[in-house]
C-alpha cells in the first residue's frame, strides 16, 4: 500500500468517525425544532400580502392575491382573497378549532376541515399559519447532509398521538447555520411522499411584541408528488407585525370586506 492510498484511507476513516460527532442528540433535535417554531413566531399580530400561483395539469395557471391575518396569542387566522376578481371577497376564518370559508357570491359560510387545500391549490392552512412543529410532532435526527451549497440537518418528524394533522410524517432539511427550514417533505400514512416544499428565501423583521426578529419565508414552492404536474408558488410580501384591530377576527368583519 502506497503512502498516498494510506493517507486516503486515513482520511476516509476520519471522516467516517467524525460523522457521528455531527449528529444531533435528542435534546438538540428537540431544541432545533423548537427554534424553528420560535424564530417564526411573532407572539403578536401578523399581516402579510401573499401571492399564490397554482399550476395544474391541463388547466390554466391561476394567480391569487390574498391577505393573511394572524393573532398568534389567540391562535386566530384569517385569509382574505383580493384577486382575481372572481375570487375577491372569499375568505377563510379560523375560530377556535373550526375553519370557515366565506363565499360572497352565495353569502354563505361553510365549515371546512383544518386540513383544507386553500383555494383548491396545494397550499394548506398550515403553510400560512403559525409554525407548531414542536407541538404537533416528535422529531428524530436522521442525517447531516448538503442541500446544494447549504449544510443541513435532516430530521424526521412523526405526529404525536392524538394530534390531527394533514401529514403524519414530515422530513425537514434545516440549515445548520441559520436554523431556517430549506426543504420539507410530507408523507402520507402509507409512507408515500405526497408533497415536497422548498423555502429558498427567508427574511426577518423586528417584532416589538416579541422584542426580537421574526423570520418568515419570502418564497415557498410546493410540488405535488402524487400529481407530479401540479405545483404552487407562494410569495409573501409586506409583512406587518403591528397590532390589528381588536374585532377583526369575526365573520362580520370578513363579510364587510367582501362587499
Amino acid at each position: 500500500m502506497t503512502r498516498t492510498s494510506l493517507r486516503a484511507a486515513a482520511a476516509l476513516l476520519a471522516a467516517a468517525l467524525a460523522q457521528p460527532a455531527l449528529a444531533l442528540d435528542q435534546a438538540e433535535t428537540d431544541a432545533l425544532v423548537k427554534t424553528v417554531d420560535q424564530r417564526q413566531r411573532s407572539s403578536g399580530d401578523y399581516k402579510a400580502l401573499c401571492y399564490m400561483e397554482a399550476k395544474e395539469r391541463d388547466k390554466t395557471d391561476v394567480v391569487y392575491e390574498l391577505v393573511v391575518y394572524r393573532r398568534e396569542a389567540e391562535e386566530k387566522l384569517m385569509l382574505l382573497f383580493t384577486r382575481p376578481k372572481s375570487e375577491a371577497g372569499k375568505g377563510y376564518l379560523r375560530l377556535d378549532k373550526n375553519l370557515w370559508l366565506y363565499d360572497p357570491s352565495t353569502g354563505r359560510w361553510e365549515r371546512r376541515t383544518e386540513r383544507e387545500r386553500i383555494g383548491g391549490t396545494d397550499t394548506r392552512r398550515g403553510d400560512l399559519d403559525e409554525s407548531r412543529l414542536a407541538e404537533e410532532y416528535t422529531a428524530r435526527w436522521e442525517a447531516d447532509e448538503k442541500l446544494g451549497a447549504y449544510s443541513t440537518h435532516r430530521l424526521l418528524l412523526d405526529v404525536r398521538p392524538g394530534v390531527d394533522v394533514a401529514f403524519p410524517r414530515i422530513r425537514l432539511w434545516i440549515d445548520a447555520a441559520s436554523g431556517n427550514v430549506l426543504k420539507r417533505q410530507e408523507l402520507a400514512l402509507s409512507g408515500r411522499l405526497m408533497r415536497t416544499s422548498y423555502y429558498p428565501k427567508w427574511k426577518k423583521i423586528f417584532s416589538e411584541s416579541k422584542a426580537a426578529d421574526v423570520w418568515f419565508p419570502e418564497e415557498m414552492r410546493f410540488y405535488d408528488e402524487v400529481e407530479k404536474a401540479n405545483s404552487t408558488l407562494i410569495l409573501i410580501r409586506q409583512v406587518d407585525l403591528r397590532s390589528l384591530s381588536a374585532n377583526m377576527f369575526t365573520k362580520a368583519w370578513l363579510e364587510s370586506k367582501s362587499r
Partner: protein
Amino acid sequence: MTVIDLQIAARNLTKHTKRNLFLGGAIAAVTLLLVLMGGLTQGMRTAMLESATTLMTGHVNVGGFYKVTSGTSAPLVTEWQKALEDTRRLVPEIDYVTIRVRGWAKGVSERASMDLVLGGVDIEREPRFRAALQVVEGSIAELGKPDTVLLFEDQARRLEVKVGDAITLSAPTSRGVNNTADLRVAVIARNIGILSSFSAFMPAETLRRLYRLNDRTTGVLHLYLKDPARSAQVAARLRSGLAQAGWRVMDPDPRPYWEKLFAKVNAEDWVGQKLDVTTWEDELTFLSWILSAVLGITGILIFILLVIVVIGILNTLAIAIRERTREIGTLRAIGMQRRKVLLLFLLEAGLLGLAGTVTGALLGLAVAGGLNAAQLPVPESIQMFLMQQHLTLAVPLRSVVADALFVSAVTTAAAIVPAFHAARLRPVTAMHHIG
C-alpha cells in the same frame, strides 16, 4: 244509451270521414306519444332501479356520518354489527343485506387524475354485482384480490389506463390525515350511464385500509327488500325504530350521501356518529331530475297536443251542429229529449276519442316492441341521461290503458260545451235554420 244511439253517433262520424280521420289521427298521435314517452321514462326508471340498486344503493340504506370534529366528517357507520342487528329486528321484510364501504378519493394515474366516489365491495358475497356489469377488459373475479380497482370505460379513458396499469388513490382518512393506496386496474366495465362517470369499485378491505377503518366500522348497510315498493315505509319505520334503540338518526333528506357529505354534514355543529336512513330514490335524486325533465317535456308536449285536439273537437262539433241544426230541430220536434241530444254529441266525441286512442295505443305498443326488438344502441353522450346502452321502453299494459282512457276522457269532456249548445236549441228555431 242504446245501440241505436251508438249507430247514429257512428254514422255521423263516418259521414265526415276526412275531417274525423284528421281529428282521430291527432288523438292517436297524442296517445302514441304518451305511450312512448311513458315507456321511455318507465324504461329509464327500471334500468335505474336495476343497475343502481346493485351498484350504488340498496332499496333502503342504513348509512351515516362520523365527525371527529365539527368540520371533519366521513361517511361511516361505527358499531355496524349492532346497527345491523337492530335493523334486522325492525325490518322483517329484508330479503338480504350487503355491507359496503363508502369513500371519496382522487385517482391519479401517470398521466391524469380525477375525483372518484368509491364503493368497497366484497365480490364473493355480492353475486348480483357481477350480473349488473358488463366487462370490457379484465375479470371481475380479480376484484376479490387486494389492491385492485374496477373502473368504467370513460374513467379508464380519462385516466389513460388499461387493465394491469397502476393508479394511486389519495384521500384523507376520517381524521383528516392524508393517505394513499396504489391499486392495479383489474377490470374495466362498460359505462352504465351517469353512475359510471364517477363511481369506481374496489375490494372493501383495500378501502378500509385506505381509510384506516377498524372491524367495527363500515360505510353503509344496503338492505334489499322482498318488495322494493315498500322502501319508503320501511325507511320511515327504521328511522323511528333506530332512534328508539338509542341511535342518533338524521332527519330524512332526499339527497345522495356524497352530496350531504360535501354540502350539509360539515356545516352542522355536532360530533360523533349519526345514522342516515335513505331509500334508493333518495340516493338517486341526482338522476331523478333527468326523469323529471323527461316527464316535464312529455307533459308540455302532451298538453300542447291535447289543446290542439280539444280545439279540433270544438271546431268539428261546432261545424257538425251548424250542419245538422235542422236535423236536431226535427229530432227535438218528434220528441227527442235535450238530454238525448247532449248524449248523442258526447257519444260522437267519445267514439272518435276511443277509436283514436285505441289506434294510438296499439301503434305505441307496436313501436315500443319494435324498438326493443331492434336493440338500438344509445349514443354514449345520451347513455348518461337514459341510463341505458340499448334503447329499452317499458310499456306496462296497465299504464297504456290508463293513457288511452285519459285521452278519451279529455276528448269526450271537450265535447260537453258544444253538445250542451246543441241540446239547448229550440225545435222551431232549429227547423227554420238555413245553413
